[in-house]
């Protein structure tokens, strides 16, 4: 599909390469994976682990302690009081994975992502409902968040349906890097993905 509100594979790939170059400079971990020679077979990806604190929205609700089981109760030690230990806010790990693919049938980029409220990708995944409520709370009011098979990896991911991307791409038609412009708009709907402000330079 081509025409307004779409992006060609060549343009996607060119934008993606600029994007990853910038990521290299600022070392925030995005990389290009897959086969660049075949349209639709390469994608931009990043896996990240961070600590988050509660702030009321559902992603930050304390995970049910999947780590522990019955035997955890045996291990609640009372150790020497340490007067120099500051009380700390409660934080817990969140692993996220974001993949930006190009959809041949829609001619637009598609964002696939997964999140796990644990130290490990694969354990205690963020449910579709949690992700949906996050996406709805965001400014975009993105409704079309669902589960889908990652077309290259063949495993389930959450994804934002590409139907809205046509509109968004049309709005970014003056951008020097449509991929970045589009991604920065949809990112908040995908588990609050944040893009560093340096990427803005690529669009002007």
């Amino acid at each position, binding site marked *: 599909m081509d025409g307004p509100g779409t992006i060609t594979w060549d343009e996607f790939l060119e934008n993606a390469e600029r994007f990853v170059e910038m990521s290299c400079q600022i070392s925030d971990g995005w990389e290009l994976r897959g086969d660049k020679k075949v349209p639709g077979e390469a994608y931009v990806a990043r896996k990240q*682990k961070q*600590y*988050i604190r509660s702030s009321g929205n559902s992603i930050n609700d304390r995970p049910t302690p999947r780590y522990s089981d019955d035997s*955890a109760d*045996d291990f609640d*030690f009372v*150790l*020497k009081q*340490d007067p120099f230990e500051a009380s700390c806010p409660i934080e817990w790990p969140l692993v996220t994975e974001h993949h930006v693919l190009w959809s041949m049938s829609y001619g637009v980029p598609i964002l696939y992502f997964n999140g796990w409220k644990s130290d490990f990708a694969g354990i205690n995944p963020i449910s579709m409902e949690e992700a949906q409520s996050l996406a709805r709370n965001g400014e975009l009011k993105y409704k079309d968040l669902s589960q889908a098979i990652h077309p290259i990896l063949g495993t389930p991911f959450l994804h934002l349906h590409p139907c809205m991307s046509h509109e968004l791409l049309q709005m970014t038609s003056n951008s020097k890097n449509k991929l970045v412009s589009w991604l920065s708009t949809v990112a908040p709907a995908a588990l609050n993905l944040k893009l560093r402000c340096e990427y803005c330079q690529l669009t002007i």
Partner: protein
Amino acid sequence: MSKFVKFSKLRSTTDSTFWAKFVELKIDKFKLDEKSISIWGSYGLQSLNEDNSNPLTLDFTSFNEDLETVDNSLSVLCCGRMINTNTFEAFRQINPEKFIDSMGKDVINSIQDGTALQSPWKLSLFLVLAYSDLKKYKFYYWVAHPTPLKLPEMYYEESPKSINEEFAAKHVEDLCQGFLQLDSRTKNYFTVLLSGDKMTIVDLAAGVKAINTNSEKQSQSYNEIYFAFYDPCATSNPGWPLRNLLCLLCWHCPTYYFSKVIKFISIRGNKTQKSLVFALKSKQYENYKCERDSLFLSNLVGWESNLNDKLGPTIVNLSDMMDPTKLSDRAVNLNLKLMKWRLVPDLDLEKIYNLKCLLLGAGTLGCAVARILLGWGVNNITFVDNSNVSHSNTVRQSLYSHQDAVKHKHKAYAAKDAVLNIRPSINAEGVILHIPMPGHVVGESMLDSTKKSLEKLEELVENSDVVFLLLDSREARWLPTVLCAAKNKIAINAALGFDSYTVQRHGTRNFTNPISPDLETRNPRGMDLGCYFCNDVTQPGNSQTDRTLDQQCTVSRPGLSQIAAGLAVELLITLLQHPLGIEAEALVRRDNISPSDTDLVGLLGCVPHTIRGSLWNYDTHLTITHRFTSCTACSVPIIAEYKNRGLRFVLDTCNVPNYLEKLSGLEQILKRPDLDELCYALDNTSDDDEDDKKI
């Protein structure tokens, strides 16, 4: 300011690759060795989320021996010691306070002998106490950052400042560049000197030397001295690493430590941009030497809190990620869940998973049915067969390989091994069993084996939820049909001709009702539906001798078994997901199906009774056979006799000619003058115009 300085605790995080590598090393290298091993840990400088703690990360590189392989400009590298106990008991019995005191002693030693001055990473030593259950991929671990408990109290001389308030823009930039250029271990602790307009970064030894020389000469070779430490914490308090730096200064320049304001730079953010400057001063102690001594004699503290915010180990179960069997399981389940999520949200996958399926016959149909059951995520499959894999089987019977034929393996076992190969977590069984058949005479010599076969078959049917009749002769289906009726099990029957097939569910049997069902009902319920033998007017006999039927030579078009097997499994799944289950009304005519007719339409649609199809004209019919009160397999007199006489009954069917026809009342009917009328009644419910050749 009145409150003494407190320190934010550290957090660590393990990557699954850390445990994967550990398991490998434990098996190949460490074995039962419980000695401590050296490991690396690092704070990444790539994090975007600078408002929260940056955890100490342990991954597969943690076990690398050479520094070169872990050194990189994008991290702050720390050294650690890990002890892994061999048993859970040993792990539980370790006293954490004693453990940290003895294992953390290296920190104290490195300060007192001065090695930490040149090798500042010795101050950020971390400890890991672990127990790993390698079979279950379950790991218990607890990380500590040892530091002496009895720190002299420090007070804020002024509020913490950002580096932009403290330094000129040029020096902020110098600090950033200087920090990034340090090697990854030296990034832990260093000294920053300001002299004139110049900012220089030197090691701790040079910093301590500068202080001690100054106090002797009473003149300063610098304007300002800062001790810097990488601080992964993000609160307003300085992070834990400052404690050991304070200890080092207390030991090496005590006069300065107890009398001067000391400035510290807490290096934060991936490019030092979030760094803070703390100006601290010690409490005035009457006898500071005494304080200093007690500091170095004190116990060590520094155990991390786990994610439940308790002092204790983190327990993680990685079997989902590391156990290959579970990996395959997850993939199968996810596929089915996708179907559930996207297409049929009410689908009861649990019910399908737990279903116990008995497959009688492991030939073309048995193999194909098993594969489709696997596709639905069925977790319990038992194969019953008494033949062996031959070379002619392998191309048609989809579970068998050439090797199975070479070894002449029993089909029941080969089929079981094949499904385990496909999905290792499944409960699969193989049973070699010859099913007693009516008309196949049982002589004295076979009495014992027939008895055993019957008992085994009874047990297998009893323990199943569904029995698939996939045998290659009509009479072999007879006893299983009787057993399913007597034990009220779901029976799914599939049979093949050369280019035609029949797939059918048997009706349920209520033995108190010998009266014929209402043949006029449009869509009869399960209780009024017949079995495979219900529209037969002869009893099953030895087809090897009379050859009236085609069972003896069962060569079918190869695609046929796949079609029939697919229909058989889908028929089962549809009825399982129907609110009435096996009692669901049978679909006959496809016109005017109302989705709101819940007696007929279930979650996955309608459930026919019999599906007949032919590849000759690619036709499919839905037909119905009613329950027949003189059926030779499922009628009241037959079931009653089986229940009363068991083995004797079965032996009579094998040995006494026309025994079943007499018992069921079929013989009486056949003598009736109105036989033609009756046959019409039996047949007219089927739309099938063809002769009712039994296939």
